[in-house]
């Protein structure tokens, strides 16, 4: 009597790229994050120091050469935004996984480190579908507008002293305008989808973003009054002795709340409320169009904390250890300070996202109009008064 043979296991066991998740290797995780941050930093240095130095060495930094230089810098910034999005999506998913006692992405790359690259490839390969009820022209334009609106903020964000694309003296007004602009893409996308959920999401997004624009602008004004300038570079310079977060504490709190709303971030994520509106304004988008909405969201998730740092936490300020200000090494160190401060604020935003539940829609609008705007006005008057008596 032969015993019954025990067959081989028929099931597929993924062991990709030789990584065994059973072994905990946190240093590998850190290595992946550091690789992203290193690329990020390299692009920053190349954009703000390398490209101008190259053009100066070639003698092309006038006329059309200047335009070419700016174009090259913008292309590099686009790369930077892609790196930021890849990193932030990974960090978001890993952090939320840790908080919710899950693993998060684990399979692709060390500790799931290149999961987002595969996600991007998947989105590229997907069909970019246009629903029959959609208005094709506006439907196609909306993701581009959203992305351009958030990407355009890069123009005035100073990474280090002098490391800014356009150190314009109307930087704050430009920021207000551009942040209003990102409401466009959302509205257009929602309206042109020909879908009820998208329309409701777009209406909510429009109302929310326009309402929170006002306290945001008032806080911008407060900062401008305190620094005596509308230029972001000079606002940072003015914080050399004392970071704005101490004298302008009230405005700072309002700014954090308003930028959470502007970001459509979790306590205020009505436009895309998954449980009510499926995904809100971008419900009909797929493939690359959706990727652009996604990219814009994560670029903003970097830029709004970066603006918090610029306005309230001294921007690039930090000990220079005797380096000559304005040199390449000093610039690199300053941009490192800026990046670290911004990373802390991104982490706080993610922390808030992991903690708080969603608000109610009418409460949100009430809060904007009945609490935030009066408080922001009070903060403005207070700042002006303090400025007068301290001068």
């Amino acid at each position, binding site marked *: 009597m032969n015993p019954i043979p025990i067959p081989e296991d*028929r099931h597929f066991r993924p062991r990709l790229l030789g990584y065994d998740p059973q072994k905990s290797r946190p240093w590998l995780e850190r290595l992946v994050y550091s690789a992203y941050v290193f690329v990020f930093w390299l692009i920053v240095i190349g954009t703000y120091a390398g490209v101008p130095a190259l053009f100066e060495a070639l003698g092309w930094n006038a006329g059309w050469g200047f335009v070419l230089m700016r174009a090259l810098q913008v292309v590099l910034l686009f790369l930077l935004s892609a790196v930021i999005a890849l990193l932030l999506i990974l960090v978001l998913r890993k952090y939320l996984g840790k908080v919710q*006692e899950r693993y998060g992405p684990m399979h692709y790359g060390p500790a799931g480190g290149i999961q987002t690259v595969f996600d991007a490839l998947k989105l590229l390969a997907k069909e970019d579908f246009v629903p029959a009820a959609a208005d094709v022209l506006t439907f196609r334009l909306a993701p581009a507008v959203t992305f351009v609106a958030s990407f355009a903020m890069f123009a005035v964000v100073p990474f280090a002293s002098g490391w800014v694309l356009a150190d314009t003296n109307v930087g704050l007004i430009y920021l207000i305008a551009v942040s209003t602009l990102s409401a466009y893409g959302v509205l257009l996308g929602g309206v042109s989808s020909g879908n009820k959920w998208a329309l409701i999401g777009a209406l909510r997004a429009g109302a929310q973003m326009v309402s929170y624009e006002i306290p945001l602008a008032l806080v911008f004004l407060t900062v401008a009054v305190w620094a005596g300038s509308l230029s972001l570079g000079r606002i940072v310079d003015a914080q050399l002795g004392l970071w704005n977060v101490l004298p302008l504490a009230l405005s700072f709190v309002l700014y954090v709340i308003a930028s959470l709303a502007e970001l459509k971030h979790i306590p205020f994520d009505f436009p895309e409320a998954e449980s009510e509106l499926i995904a809100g304004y971008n419900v009909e988008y797929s493939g690359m169009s959706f990727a652009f909405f996604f990219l814009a969201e994560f670029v903003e998730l970097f830029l709004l904390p970066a603006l918090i740092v610029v306005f309230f936490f001294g921007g690039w300020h930090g000990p220079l250890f005797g380096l000559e200000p304005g040199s390449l090494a000093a610039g690199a160190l300053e941009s490192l300070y800026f990046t670290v401060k911004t990373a802390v604020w991104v982490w706080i935003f993610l922390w808030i996202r992991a*903690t708080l539940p969603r608000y109610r829609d009418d409460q949100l609008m009430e809060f904007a109009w009945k609490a935030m705007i009066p408080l922001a006005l009070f903060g403005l008057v207070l700042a002006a008064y303090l400025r007068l008596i301290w001068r």
Partner: protein
Amino acid sequence: MSLLQEVWQAVKAIGTGMATVHKRVYEDAPTEFYPYVKPDLPPVSVQSLALVENEDGSERCIVCLQCERACPAQVITIERHRNPEGKGFLIDRFDIDLVNCMYCAACVEACPVSSIVTIQDFEMSTYDLQTLKADIDFLHEQARRARQWYSPKFGVELRTEDGRIEKAPPEMQPGGLAELLKPAEEVDS
């Protein structure tokens, strides 16, 4: 004053919540990392069905059609003919449509010889739904792969390394309703 108190309450609540959330970051995930770690299922869990053969490879099923009659979803189809060389019946066809099966295990309850049993294998994902219309070979293979299975008549049975079938030790056997409810009570307390 009450407004200030309300604001303070809100700030305190948000702070407590955020502190609680932050503590979670340092805890290990209690979930099992499934494709690498097999879940520790209770021995009586109904994950899939199988048709057990005897140790010598002969059919244990006597083709009495009890399971076909007991099935509320009517997913079992059996065809048989009389054994020309002895008594009893031989199987022509024994199909279970595992797509429409609702895993109530009524067939297992009904089986007089404990030939049809519940097993712990739940990994039945497939690209082709037709492969889940299980025929007798499929059901036999399920049983061969299984290390242990359950039927009400024999309780939990094990397959040893050398292929023999023996009854599981008493600590692996289901101890009636009271013991089954025990973990639920622990969760409640």
